[in-house]
């Protein structure tokens, strides 16, 4: 019975399974080639570079599951990182408040996206193209020049291993605390991404609203006929997107100890988030995929860039190779059209 369940799961999640396998192969061979492979230091460095894009990829997943795209996720990340660069400092209570306000601002921005899409009846792609520009504009107002003073302890604690985190806040008990030992060498960003995924994404997926998001992307007509809360689900999807993007922005601010209203960075994160979502097995037509897959997709994108460092490849080749990998990955999705029997269906 277990065997058949596993088989079914694999068949139903071909895209995600493939992504997971690809990531495992890429990352293990990367570590074997790396002079200090399989060490906590390498893992920490890799995790730091991956966390923000992983969050932004999660943000992109929900609009894509609906069958749309959110072109504002990178901009919301940039905006929230600029907000965080002002707010996340001072006493512990102030820091905590600053973090909460940062996340709230991103969530509110996502909510606005959702309201515009649902009640303005504007396609997500164009609505978020506009709101994305607004977000970058706001970011420039908030932080005209790069800078800011994010709490230094927090920066150290969140960008190293769990042991360092515990040590910073005096919880480590010399490395002997019972809870610490099994995870002492795990990078903190890994824990953060996993926590957000487990505490926010997993419950959402198991709610009626979350299921409605999948149903809309899969077949909106039947979803409506089945009496599902379509408007609520769309608004929720964009709101959650804003929240995840804000997680990315907050992390980026803490990691760099500053904020920077970098327009190009915002655009690059948005495009990479779409690539990560697709690599992670989510269908651009909607209805199939998950935010967990997008995290895996984001990791694949980053691992590819790590190779450039250890193999000493000209970094100028990086976009070319990333493009080819993405093209090959999305080609798998095109096999669907070979099974379509009514050619008119190809245009619907």
């Amino acid at each position, binding site marked *: 019975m277990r065997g058949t369940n596993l088989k079914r799961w694999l068949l139903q999640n071909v895209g995600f399974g493939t992504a997971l396998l690809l990531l495992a192969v890429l990352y293990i061979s990367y570590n074997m080639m790396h002079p200090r492979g399989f060490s906590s230091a390498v893992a920490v460095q890799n995790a730091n570079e991956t966390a923000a894009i992983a969050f932004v990829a999660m943000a992109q997943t929900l609009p894509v599951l609906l069958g749309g795209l959110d072109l504002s996720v990178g901009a919301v990340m940039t905006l929230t990182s600029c907000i965080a660069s002002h707010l996340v400092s001072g006493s512990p209570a102030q820091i905590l408040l600053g973090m909460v306000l940062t996340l709230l601002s991103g969530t509110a921005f996502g909510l606005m996206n959702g309201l515009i899409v649902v009640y303005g009846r504007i396609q997500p792609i164009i609505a978020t193209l506009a709101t994305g520009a607004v977000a970058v504009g706001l970011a420039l107002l908030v932080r005209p020049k790069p800078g800011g003073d994010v709490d230094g302890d927090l920066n150290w604690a969140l960008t190293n291993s769990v042991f360092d985190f515990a040590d910073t806040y005096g919880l480590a008990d010399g490395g002997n605390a019972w809870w610490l030992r099994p995870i002492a060498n795990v990078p903190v960003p890994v824990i953060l991404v996993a926590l957000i995924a487990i505490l926010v994404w997993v419950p959402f997926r198991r709610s009626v609203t979350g299921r409605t998001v*999948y149903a809309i992307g899969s077949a909106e007509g039947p979803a409506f006929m*089945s009496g599902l809360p379509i408007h609520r689900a769309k608004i929720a999807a964009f709101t959650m997107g804003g929240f995840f993007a804000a997680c990315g922005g907050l992390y980026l601010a803490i990691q760099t100890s500053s904020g920077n209203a970098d327009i190009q960075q915002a655009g690059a994160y948005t495009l990479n988030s779409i690539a990560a979502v697709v690599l992670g097995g989510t269908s651009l037509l909607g209805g199939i995929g998950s935010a967990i897959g997008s995290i895996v997709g984001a990791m694949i994108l980053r691992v590819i860039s790590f190779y450039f460092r250890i193999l000493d490849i000209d970094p100028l080749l990086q976009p070319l190779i990333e493009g080819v990998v993405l093209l090959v990955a999305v080609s798998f999705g095109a096999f669907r059209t070979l099974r379509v029997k009514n050619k008119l269906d190809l245009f619907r």
Partner: protein
Amino acid sequence: MSDAIVEYRGISKFFAGIRALENVDFACSPGSIHAILGENGAGKSTLIKIMSGVLQPDAGEIRLEGKPVTFPTPDAANRAGIVCMFQELSLIPDLSVADNISISDPPRRFGLIDSRAQIARAEDLLARVRCEDVDPRSLVRELSLSRRQMVEIAKALGRKPKVLILDEATSALTSRDVQTVYDLLAELKDEGVASLFISHRMHEVDALCDTLAVFRNGQHIETFAKGEKSEREIVHLMIGRDVEAQFPPKPPLKSPEERGKPLLKVQGLKWETKLNGVDLSVCRGEIVGLGGLDGQGQKELLLALFGALRDVDGEVTIGNRKGIPSSPAGAKSAATRMALVPEDRKTEGLMLGMPISDNLLAASYGKISRGPFIDPALARHAVEDGLKKLQIKIGSASDPVMTLSGGNQQKVVIAKWLMIDPDIILLNDPTRGIDVGTKQEIYRLMRELANEGKAILFYSSDYAELIGCCDRVSVLYGGRVVSEQEGDDITEESLVAASLNIDVEAA
């Protein structure tokens, strides 16, 4: 009828001024199975769409258990206990069977969907419809059409209906499943559920229902108990309307020898579940009608001939050339010279936002180009010719085609295809939703084209048109031709009877 569970009082519904339902009074009582009969466009589906909250009536009142109600959404109707199974399935292909069965109100633990309870619930309901072979964890898209339909039934059952509406719910089922559904409906009847059953299969209606209601032209004609009327009388009730349109005179019926060799010959055409071996032929100079109720494969037949479907089996001979065109571009090429006026002009026939002239030229750019460039003078001439030939009334040829009336839009589609000077013209319900005057122009044009020696295959959901226009009619039922009629033998009775696949003479 105070004991009615659902009651309509003076319900009317119009679409763009065209009557779909007018002043309908209708009621059904608990513990009954109510058949709803009527030909295409009689208002059956509007009736149930209003009941299930998909459409809002323009006038009138619905009462549920004696109290006036309104259903702004399908959800509201569901909550009130009215559950509808539509022809187009309401399942979400990428979700699992268990997800689908409990889609809008799943069992929950701590506010989250309890997937284990959901699977158990799905197993119970699937067992009730004797589909233990369906794994609740599989995705709906992995199931065959007949299994999906059973899942749909299980989903409807799970909503504990007071009124269950089945719209062609048995069309894709195997005979074993049909029996299961029969038993189930009988069970529900004993539990006091009112079922509304729409089917085009008379024997099913006979076997299952206790009350029959006939609709015609948006009006409720009569409701009577089963057995009160013969099949012949029922068919009469379903027809009996004024002929609105005048048809051009038909030439005398030719014998097979006079017709000559067919230009289009189809043998054993099969595609997916929709076409199950269609045989027919069309000769030069004749109009052959395709009859039958909606969805019996007529549309797919035309698309298959036009090269729009993949993996079509069977033999097609066009002139001396064997084989089905591989694409619409191939179908219209010099070898076959075929044209298709599609069912839905708005999505398949026209590029609505583009100018009238571009739409007219869309199929015949080869004729008006020199090398890779369009010759403006030739194009202008071609457009003027097309407009004149069909007497299309327009302001300017550069206006978007969507500014035209429905009738003129349809003329643009027809004119577009006449520009390639086709030998074979396939028409898919070309007069749907257009005014009587334009209809008559189209009838006249069809006859002229036939007289010029073209072969015309004409699907219409309006029997009067088939009788008035066609030299011969092939009636489709379940993806095959069940009856061929010609000349004066084409009558409303014979067409309606054939489309229900019953034999009136025998009844």
